């Protein structure tokens, strides 16, 4: 916390306090649920039930879970198109998310957005976005609005490593730093560095591979975190969120993580990486890491683990059934929602 503005630092925060562990069990449950959700969504895609693009979060769960565990019910967040987990972690019913993927009337956006455009505004989820980096300015302006309205709410902006090479990263981040000087930009930028922008690795697209440090160039405090370890992410998130809420200044964190699945469901052959690398990262599966920690601390036993997995299977099966049986949007929906007036 004593670091100067602009300096990057790596923090290791293990040995959490006991209450932290017990309160992490529901997050373990959500992570298991989400993994199952993604697996089943992919199967539904192969069956032709889901169209378009389908980007799965498997392997990266601890990042979104750790941060969403640290914010208040009235805080808000934005992310890109790998967004199913963010919705489910926040409490959006999995069946409404699945129905959206199936293009049904009962989906979160009435079947008009699909996988890349999940929204749950009553829960503070201001959207999934399909153009890489283009949601970063939105989140930045939203953070300004929260302060302008006199609240102490904050905004989280999840983004991928690939987004950081776009102009839509540098422009708003620079503005956030300027606005932060007056305490007018309570935002946390959370880089989900999963090593690849589609098939282009970080080191093939930038020389500065310490991505957190790029925020430092704009005068924003930043750090890296092990994105596979939920407890570490959560503790960092709690500290950062409290600080941003108090100061109204932006902060950035780069979570080092890995996507265990392809870029999208159509990325079958993954010529940009070898199987050995994927296998290596499977040893650092965030769900297993958290499971081990909770097990060791005695807040989770084998029977509970089995029950949680069974419950996830049932919930996702119910979500698939609900999505399949839901009606398509009626033709009258086509022109609705384009404009508020006329």
């Amino acid at each position: 916390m004593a670091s100067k503005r602009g300096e990057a630092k790596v923090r290791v925060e293990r040995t959490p306090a006991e209450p932290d562990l017990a309160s992490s069990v529901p997050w373990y449950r959500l992570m298991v649920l989400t993994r199952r959700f993604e697996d089943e969504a992919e199967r539904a895609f192969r069956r032709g039930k889901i169209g378009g693009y389908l980007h799965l979060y498997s392997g990266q769960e601890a990042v979104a879970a750790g941060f969403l565990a640290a914010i208040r019910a009235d805080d808000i967040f934005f992310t890109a198109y790998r967004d199913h987990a963010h919705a489910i972690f926040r409490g959006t019913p999995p069946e409404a998310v699945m129905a959206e993927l199936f293009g049904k009337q009962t989906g979160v956006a009435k079947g008009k957005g699909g996988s890349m455009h999940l929204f749950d505004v009553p829960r503070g989820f201001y959207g999934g976005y399909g153009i890489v980096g283009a949601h970063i300015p939105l989140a930045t302006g939203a953070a300004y609005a929260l302060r302008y309205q006199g609240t102490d709410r904050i905004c989280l902006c999840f983004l991928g490593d690939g987004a950081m090479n776009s102009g839509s990263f540098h422009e708003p981040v620079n503005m956030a730093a300027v606005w932060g000087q007056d305490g007018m930009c309570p935002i946390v930028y959370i880089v989900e560095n999963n090593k690849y922008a589609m098939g282009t690795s970080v080191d093939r697209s930038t020389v500065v591979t310490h991505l957190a440090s790029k925020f430092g160039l704009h005068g924003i405090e930043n750090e890296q975190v092990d994105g596979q370890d939920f407890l570490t992410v959560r503790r960092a998130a709690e500290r950062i969120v409290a600080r941003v809420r108090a100061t109204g200044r932006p902060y950035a964190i780069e979570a080092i993580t890995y996507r265990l699945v392809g870029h999208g469901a159509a990325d079958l052959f993954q010529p940009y990486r070898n199987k050995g690398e994927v296998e290596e990262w499977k040893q650092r599966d965030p769900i297993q890491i958290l499971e081990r920690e909770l097990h060791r601390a005695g807040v989770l036993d084998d029977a509970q683990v089995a029950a949680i997995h069974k419950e996830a299977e049932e919930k996702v099966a119910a979500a698939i059934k609900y999505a399949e049986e839901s009606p398509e949007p009626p033709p009258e929906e086509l022109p609705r929602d384009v404009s508020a007036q006329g």
Partner: protein
Amino acid sequence: MAQVLTYRDALRATLMEEMDRNPAVVLLGEDIGVYQGTFRITADFLTRFGPKRVIDTPISELGFVGAAVGMAMLGLRPVVEVMTWNFSLLAADQILNNAAKLRYFSGGQVNVPLVIRGPNGAGVQLSAQHSQSLEALYAHFPGLWVVAPATPADARGLLLTALRGKDPVVFLENAALYGAKGEVQDGAAAIPFGQAEIMRRGHDVTIISYSRMVHLALVAAEQLAQQGIEAEVINLRTLRPLDRETLIRSVRRTHRAVVVQEQWRPFGAAAEIAAVIYEGAFDLLDAPVERVTGADVPMPYARNLELLALPHERDIVAAVQRTLYRQ
């Protein structure tokens, strides 16, 4: 009581009035505060409303237009000044892919009450990159309203509607009109989008235009009157929505139409308006719809070439004469 105001002062006064009335209105843009605004629309606003409401931005069109979209999603009512619409191309993705579509792809969960305003069209010898008319580009996209006031009264009435609606509005001003004077009624009400104004009555031909070209059409109509031709002149005020009804009703009466635009001819606003006329008045037309447009070249710098590239009232007169087979 009516007051004579310039187009600039009509915009300025309306903006100020709404900011006094509604604390959710904030302004963003380059040099709108300390510098007082490139075209002085926001002169003295910083002193009056403070830096939290009058935000001088870095030169980051993508960044500040996008940030304004985010503010609008959270319930503020941002008004972005683009120094000229040419620079909006740097923010095109934010306008076209976010502002215009957010409401739809969220299934109606968010509104984007955003106004983006600034001068559109040619100036004087500003050359190729600073002289563009982008109305057809923006009017192509569902989810945006596209407004192009021709008079101080339009400027006030349309800005009021823009500032009180719930949708993103592309508000196209014209630098050559900022000093133009006109009557504005005290406390004048908002002008709803999609209501064209008939600026001059006539029965021989309908001249349809918007923004600065309306004034050329009025000059041309004067000249035509001296030849015994009575032209009806329609000021569209908004391109999206387009007041199809007023257009069609007029052309069904005059049987002839000339559409005037400053922008390039291919795929321009005039092509759309001509199609609307063909769809609604084909059986009553006595001549093909004529288009008067800018030349199909990037804007040249040399003044003589620039004048050749822009529509002139004599072009309108000639087009009207063609519809009457008088050439």
